[in-house]
Structure formats: C-alpha cells, structure tokens
C-alpha cells in the first residue's frame, strides 16, 4: 500500500499548528476510490486522446493511469536508459507545477509534451496529476531514429509507435487540462476530509489507550496499596457506616491478638471493650456527620495491654459524596507517650525541686533578661517571681547587673559552668552567695540561657571572714614574735614560717612552705630527731643555749620543740629563741661579779703583798745604805767593829753583794709595779679624775698587757712589736687613769687577737703603733695595728654591744662599746675607727686636755 506522507519542509508551518499529516499518515486509497478515478481518467483519455496518470509525490510512484501511449509504455519506460529520462521528466514537471501551484506544460526529456497539476491536501503536495504524451508539432524522424539507436529499440517498430502519437494544438491541450485541474482540486478536498477523519480517529484511539493504561495503573497501585496496608507496620482499619470492619491489616489484628480474617463481619463492639467501642462509635459518628478529618490521640485498652495511638480518622465517601465508612490509620505512640509522661513527671519533679528549693534559682536569657526565678529567689529580692520575670537584671538588682553581663560573656566563650562568690545588697540586708553559673543548651546544643543556682553562704562567709581575721591575727602574732617560729608536719615539711625565721634564714615564707626543714633551715636539720621524739612522746623537748648559725652569725638559742597534740594533726612547732644577748648579759653579770670579787680580792691581796714587799724593799734600802760609805754612823760602827767602812764596802763589792742587793731591790720594785698595775685596773675608781701623762698610761698598759697571762698565752703578746711615736709637746690631761688604761688595754687586746696566728698582712712582724699628739684643746691617741683589718659588715657593727666575731665564751662583745662609753661619755672625747680588710685597723681617740666642768673632780 502506498503511503502518502506530507512534505516536511512544506508542512512545517502546519506542524506547528496541529501537525496534520505528520502523524496522520494516510494512503491515497483512503482518500478516494482509485477504481472510480481510473474510469474517470480513462473516459477523459478516450475522449481527448491524452494519456493521464496520478503519481504520488515525491515518490513518483504511479498509482492510476489511463490511455498510455505504446511508445512510452513499450519503449521509453521499458528500456532502462530511457526509463531514467522518463522518471526525471515526471519529477521535473511535478516540481515545476508545485512551484507555480498551477497546471504547467513542458516537453519531456524524450520530446513528448506533458502537463502536470499538483494535488494539495491541507497545503501539502501529496501527488501530481499528469497528462500528455502528445506532440504539438510533427516530430523529427531523425531524432527518434537516433533515440532508437541510442536506447536499443527496434527502429521500425519504434518509429511506427511514434507515428501513432497524435499531434495536437497546444490551446486545445491546455483547455483539456482545466478539467484535470478540477479533478485534482476535488482529490485535494477529499483528501482533506479523509485527513480530518483519520486524525479524529487517531486521537480517539490514543485517548482510549491512555485510559486503558491509567486504569491499569490504578489497579496496580490499588493492589500495591492493599499489599502495603496489609503489611504495614501500623494498624489500618476501615469501617463501614454501621461500624462493621471492612478491612483490617495484620498490624491492627496483631494488637488485638488475632488475624485479619477474624474481623470479617464483626463490629467494633464485638472486638473492643464496651466503653472503648462506644467511644470509637461516637467518634465515628461525629466524623461521619461533620465530614471532618483530624488526628486524635488516645489510650486504648487492648488484650495485650494499654497502648497509646495517634490516629488519623477520615471518612470514606462514595461517588455521590455519601459517607459509607471511615478509615483509621493509627500510629503506636505508646513509647513516646511514656517518654512524655516521664518527661512531665520529671518536669514536675524538677518544678517541685526548683519551686520549693531553699536556694535561689534563676534563668537569664543570653541578653540578660530574667526568664525564670523561683520563689526563694524572688523573696530574697523582696517580691514574687512574676514581679521580676521578663525584666533585665539592672532593673531589679542594679549592682549585680554588670557582673552578670561579664560572666555571661565568659560563659558563652568557655561554654562551661563556673562558681562565683558575691556579696549582694538585698533589700533589708547584705548577703553572701555562692552562685553556680551553668549554660543551658537548646536541642542543637546551642547556648540558650544561663542558669544560676545560688547558695546563701553568708554565715559561712562571716565565719570565714572571722577565721581570716583570726588567721591574720595569729599570723601577726606569730610574725610579731621576737623568736623564730617554724611549724613542720610529721614528715618534716614546713607549714609555718614567721618573719623572724625569714630574717634568720633569708628564705621567705612562700619559699619555705612545703619544703623540708633541713633544706630551708640547715641549722635545724639535725633537730628533726627531736621533732620526731617530741611528736611520739607528746612532750616538749627543749635544748638550751644551743649554738646555731642565724643570719650568718653564731648565736646562742633555746630551741624548743612543741608537739602539736590536737587530734589528727601530726607535726610540731619549733621555737628558736635567740638568747645570745640574754646569755651575754648573764655572762657579763657573772663576769662583772667575778671582776668585783676579783677586784676586792686583788685589793686585799695587794695589801697583803705590799706589806711584806715594803719590808723587803725598805730593809734592802737600809742594808744598801749601811754597807757603803756615806752615813757617818757606818764609819763609826765599822771602826767599833774593828774594821773600816771602806773595807766593808770593798768586800761587798768584790763578793758581788752590792749588785745582788741591787738586783733584789729591782725584782722587788718590779713585783710592786705588777701588783700596783693590777690594783689600779681592778680598783673601783669612778670619778678619779687626775692629771695624767698619757705616755705613762700607754706604757703602763703595754706592760700590763705583756704580763697578762691570757693575752700572752693565747696571742703571744710578747712577739708584738710596739712602736711609740709620742710627740714631745703632748700635754698631760685630766682623766680617769684607770678607765683610760682600760680603754687602751681593750684596744691592745683586740689587736693582739686580730694579729694572732699569722693573720698579719704579708708576713710582716705584728706591730702596734702608739701615737700621741696635741690636737687643738684635745690630745689625740692613735693605736694602729697591721692586722687583717675588718670586713665592712664587721666594721659597721664593731661598736655594737654584744657583737663579737670571737664566738660564744671567748669575747663578751663589750670591749669596744665600753671603751666607747668611757671615751665619749665619761671623758667627753671622741672615738673613731678606720679599718680596711688586709690593711690593719686604726683607732683614734681624742680626749679633752681640761676636765669637763660637768665632771666632778675630787678636791685635792
């Protein structure tokens, strides 16, 4: 069957409108009765003599023909080479006619005349009506003979057929074509009708197919839905308007403990407890009458227990809108309900806790607005919760607002809670609160609010402040103590360290605390045994006058270890009392008592010695006088005795008696001097101001020092070279000789001690230079040694009472201060010292020549 398909290029405009031929494929046979057309064309050919044909465009297929010429049918179209030319000719004329849209007439490639009329259906060229196979003039025999030659025809037969082609007038041919034009037009109209009919049929067909597909889909989805509903994990129930079950899925059946088929023909009342069934029946009625669909949540008592369902109940209507039943799709929300209930309970509990809490609880939004406050909190602020909720902190507690803002900021950054202590000025009173700031988080973990839980710590704070005050007081008391107080725990770690301990060791309390006693107070390191025994025996251990190095000096101290005897406290307190000064005072008192008694004894002894010495001296003098010339009695008595005084003297001389007596005299005088010096030094002689020659006093002191047993034994005073530089014009002065001698003695003794044991610089002979010179209305005395000198630290303290470098028991630390006192206070003089380490020490004493008027001088 030939199919006509519209020219796409020509019908593009139509396509955009309705695409009539593109999808309405139609064959020419459907447009018209081809047999009828043949008859029509045959009768036309018969009456006119023109051949006719209908050719489909653009396939050029011949559909119907009539009156075709033998020459064309038997030769031109039968032989392959010429057939091509025929086809080309038909195409040319068809296209030409299409272009002009009207009948056109041209010669064919083989010289015959032909006409073409386009058949147009809905503006689409679907076929061409051809006519012709005639000549307008007599054809050239040569040309057609050449044709026969060229295409291989039988020349004579061909020319005979050609001869049968009529020669007609062009005008009559064109006239005949107008008839064919009407025919073509009629075919076009028929075609249009056929297309329209075909198109309508096709649309209908398409719609039918679509409906079938849709119905199939609905059936499919219905069955899927049913499958789905049957197997759904949640109960689905359909009830008709009488309350009978129409559909129950497995899940719903399972809740009742049975299978879906058990519901068939049963109603709500058959399967549910009466009350429950009634409730659902009413609900159903309500839904059905009010055509309302909504969710309900309720508790259902089922054989398996109590459940909570959230159900969507919807009416089912028939095509007329009449309610025929209800559908219930349920969700088991038992777990959620339980959780909600628990949450409610927990919230309730929380609310109870918060409401009845005895401590204030508040929530603030991040911008500082009070979201919640419990009754205690509100009461503290002097009101009820509703008085404050929604307000900003600065509106009801201005002094705390800034802190709140600050802390909120910190909390937002750190995202962790914190504790703060505040004194809050509440209406009526000031209170201390310990407040926990806690961030509250929203469901996504974001910060949503700040919770404040406060504890009233006013009492504790007061107690703390009191404790702090007491602690400070105690610390002050301990620090103010003149003694060293060190606390240690059971293991010997320091926990108490007062100011004196700090001064003595140079270690601060902060540095000392927590460290071992021996580390920070080496002088007490070996006292740990005492600490332990004190703790064990629970009795204080005391060590008196222990020699301990404190602040770089050796000191005497009473060390007492007091065990801490309170329960649960293991440790001890060590009290170190520097008793150096007390001991020295004691020693000094003992010394001065000793000196006093020694003085008394010396005085008594001197008297007892002086008497026999006087006897010896006087006797020797008498003897010496009586054995020499000189006294008249001597001569006289010598002669009476039968000799001459000259002989006696000569004898004495020759026998060495005179020099022996002189020697005895000298020894005796020395003995007198020694006793006399001792006496003058130990003698109580206050106020004994007399005119003294300092030369004599200095020399006497040197002599005394040389004869001092202790000085000589310990410091080898004899080896010290004494250089005297006394200026001749040094006047005598009024002074207490004994005391000035005491001063000189002290200085000499210090020098001797300093220079002992090779302490003299650069191996020089130990030397003391004594100088005397007038100095205005004073006399200047210098006592200078070439000893080791003094370090700065020692020099600064040299005149300080009780300061000594000699160690306990050797020096009293009083020599220099007493000397200073004698010079400056008793004699209104001055005393200075120059000392350089390694270059010796020089003491400079200046004494007034005339006795100060304030000093009582004894009447002569």
């Amino acid at each position: 069957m030939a199919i006509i398909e519209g020219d796409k290029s020509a019908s593009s405009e139509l396509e955009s409108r309705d695409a009539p031929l593109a999808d309405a494929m139609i064959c020419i046979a459907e447009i018209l009765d081809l047999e009828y057309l043949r008859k029509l064309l045959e009768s036309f050919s018969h009456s006119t003599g023109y051949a006719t044909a209908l050719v489909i465009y653009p396939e050029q297929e011949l559909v119907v023909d009539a009156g075709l010429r033998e020459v064309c049918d038997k030769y031109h179209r039968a032989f392959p080479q010429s057939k091509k030319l025929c086809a080309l000719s038909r195409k040319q004329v068809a296209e030409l006619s299409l272009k002009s849209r009207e009948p056109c007439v041209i010669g064919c490639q083989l010289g015959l005349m032909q006409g073409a009329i386009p058949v147009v259906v809905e503006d689409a060229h679907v076929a061409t009506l051809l006519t012709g196979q005639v000549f307008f003039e007599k054809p050239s025999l040569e040309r057609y003979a050449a044709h026969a030659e060229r295409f291989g025809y039988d020349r004579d037969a061909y020319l005979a057929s050609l001869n049968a082609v009529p020669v007609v007038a062009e005008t009559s041919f064109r006239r005949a074509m107008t008839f064919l034009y009407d025919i073509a037009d009629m075919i076009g109209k028929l075609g249009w009708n056929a297309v329209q009919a075909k198109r309508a049929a096709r649309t209908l067909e398409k719609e039918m197919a679509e409906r079938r597909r849709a119905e199939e889909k609905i059936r499919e989805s219905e069955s899927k839905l049913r499958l789905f509903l049957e197997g759904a994990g949640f109960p689905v129930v359909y009830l008709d308007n009488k309350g009978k079950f129409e559909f129950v899925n497995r899940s719903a059946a399972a809740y009742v403990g049975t299978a879906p088929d058990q519901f068939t023909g049963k109603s709500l009342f058959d399967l549910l407890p009466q009350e429950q069934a009634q409730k659902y029946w009413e609900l159903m009625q309500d839904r059905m009458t009010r055509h309302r669909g909504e969710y309900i949540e309720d508790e259902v008592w089922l054989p398996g227990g109590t459940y909570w369902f959230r159900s969507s109940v919807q009416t089912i209507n028939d095509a007329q809108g009449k309610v025929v039943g209800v559908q219930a799709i349920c969700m088991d929300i038992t777990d959620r309900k339980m959780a909600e209930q628990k949450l409610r309970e927990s919230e309730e509990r929380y609310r109870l806790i918060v409401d009845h809490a005895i401590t204030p609880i508040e929530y603030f939004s991040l911008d500082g607005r009070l979201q919640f406050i419990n009754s205690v909190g509100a009461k503290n602020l002097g009101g009820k919760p509703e008085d404050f909720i929604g307000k900003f902190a600065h509106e009801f507690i201005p002094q705390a607002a800034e802190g709140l803002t600050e802390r909120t900021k910190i909390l937002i950054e750190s995202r962790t809670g914190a504790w703060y202590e505040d004194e809050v000025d509440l209406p009526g009173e000031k209170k201390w609160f310990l407040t926990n700031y806690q961030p509250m988080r929203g469901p996504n973990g974001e910060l949503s609010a700040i919770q404040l839980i406060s504890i009233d710590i006013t009492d504790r704070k007061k107690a703390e402040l009191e404790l702090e005050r007491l602690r400070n007081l105690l610390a002050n008391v301990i620090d103010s103590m003149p003694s060293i107080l060190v606390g240690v725990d059971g293991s010997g770690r320091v926990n108490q360290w007062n100011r004196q301990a700090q001064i003595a060791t140079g270690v601060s309390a902060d540095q000392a605390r927590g460290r071992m006693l021996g580390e920070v107070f080496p002088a007490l390191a070996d006292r740990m045994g005492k600490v332990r025994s004190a703790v064990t025996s629970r009795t204080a251990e005391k060590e008196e006058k222990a020699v301990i190095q404190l602040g770089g000096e050796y000191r005497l101290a009473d060390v007492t270890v007091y065990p801490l005897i309170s329960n649960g406290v293991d440790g001890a307190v060590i009290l170190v009392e520097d008793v150096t000064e007390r001991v020295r005072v004691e020693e000094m008192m003992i010394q001065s008592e000793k000196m006093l008694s020694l003085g008394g004894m010396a005085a008594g002894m001197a008297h007892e010695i002086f008497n026999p010495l006087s006897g010896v001296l006087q006797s020797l003098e008498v003897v010496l006088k009586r054995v020499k010339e000189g006294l008249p009695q001597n001569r006289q008595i010598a002669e009476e005795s039968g000799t001459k005084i000259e002989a006696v003297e000569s004898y004495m001389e020759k026998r060495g008696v005179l020099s022996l007596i002189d020697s005895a005299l000298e020894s005796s005088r020395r003995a007198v001097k020694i006793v006399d010096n001792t006496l003058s030094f130990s003698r109580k002689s206050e106020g004994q101001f007399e005119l003294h020659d300092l030369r004599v006093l200095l020399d006497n002191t040197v002599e005394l020092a040389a004869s001092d047993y202790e000085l000589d034994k310990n410091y080898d005073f004899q080896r010290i070279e004494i250089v005297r530089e006394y200026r001749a014009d040094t006047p005598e002065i009024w002074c207490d000789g004994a005391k000035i001698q005491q001063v000189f003695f002290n200085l000499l003794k210090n020098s001797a001690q300093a220079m002992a044991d090779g302490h003299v610089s650069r191996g020089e002979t130990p030397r003391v230079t004594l100088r005397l010179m007038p100095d205005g209305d004073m006399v200047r005395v210098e006592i200078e040694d070439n000893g080791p000198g003094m370090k700065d630290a020692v020099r600064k303290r040299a005149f300080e009472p009780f300061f000594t470098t000699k160690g306990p028991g050797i020096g009293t630390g009083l020599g220099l201060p007493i000397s200073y006192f004698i010079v400056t206070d008793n004699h209104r003089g001055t005393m200075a010292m120059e000392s350089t380490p390694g270059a010796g020490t020089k003491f400079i004493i200046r004494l007034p020549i005339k006795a100060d008027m304030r000093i009582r001088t004894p009447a002569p």
Partner: protein
Amino acid sequence: MKVLIIDDDPGIRVSLREYLRDFDMEVSSAKNAEEAFQLLAEQKYDVAIVDLRMRGESGREFILKAHRLSPATRFLIYTGSADHRLSDELRSIGIRPEHVFLKPQMDLELLVNAIRTAAASH
C-alpha cells in the same frame, strides 16, 4: 726630832725605823695602837707614821685619839690600802693627801722629806 712608827708588820716597822735612824731621827716604834699610846704617854713625838689597817684599834681611830692626847704631833699615813679615802674627821685635824703614802714607797727619801716638813710645821 722624835718619830713614832705604828705598824703591825715587823718587817716594815723595823726596816723603816732603821732607815729613819740613819737620817738622825729619834725613832720609836709600836706594833699596835695600845703600845703606841703607852709610848705617847711617856714622851712627846714630833711626827707619827701610822699604818691604817692594824689588828686591834685601827690607824684612823688611833690618829683621832692621839691627836686629842698630843695635839702637837703631826701624823703621816703609811698604808697598803689602795682604796683608802681620807675621812672628813682626818681632814678636820689637818691631814691632807700629801700626808698619805702608799706602801710600798719606792723612794723613801720622799717620806723623809715629808717627816721633816711635817715636823717643821708646828
């Protein structure tokens, strides 16, 4: 010139007596106040040299009593007590520090001079 020495130490008493005798003095000596008073009762002395510390009556008491018995006698004190003080009573009868000599006297001629001066003063 008559000189009386009162001293309980025989070494001093005897040697001083001998010494002074070499200076042409008439010297008596007593070992205590009691003996001295006996001598005073027998004759007059120009000068008495008195030890202060003696057994029995002290030198000070002796001087005060002797002065009443023999006002013309001058007294010199010759003592071994370094801590002596001239009492106001002694001062009242004209005894001055220069009349006090400490034992032992290194230069006895000073004492001789003092005796002569004292003797000449009445």
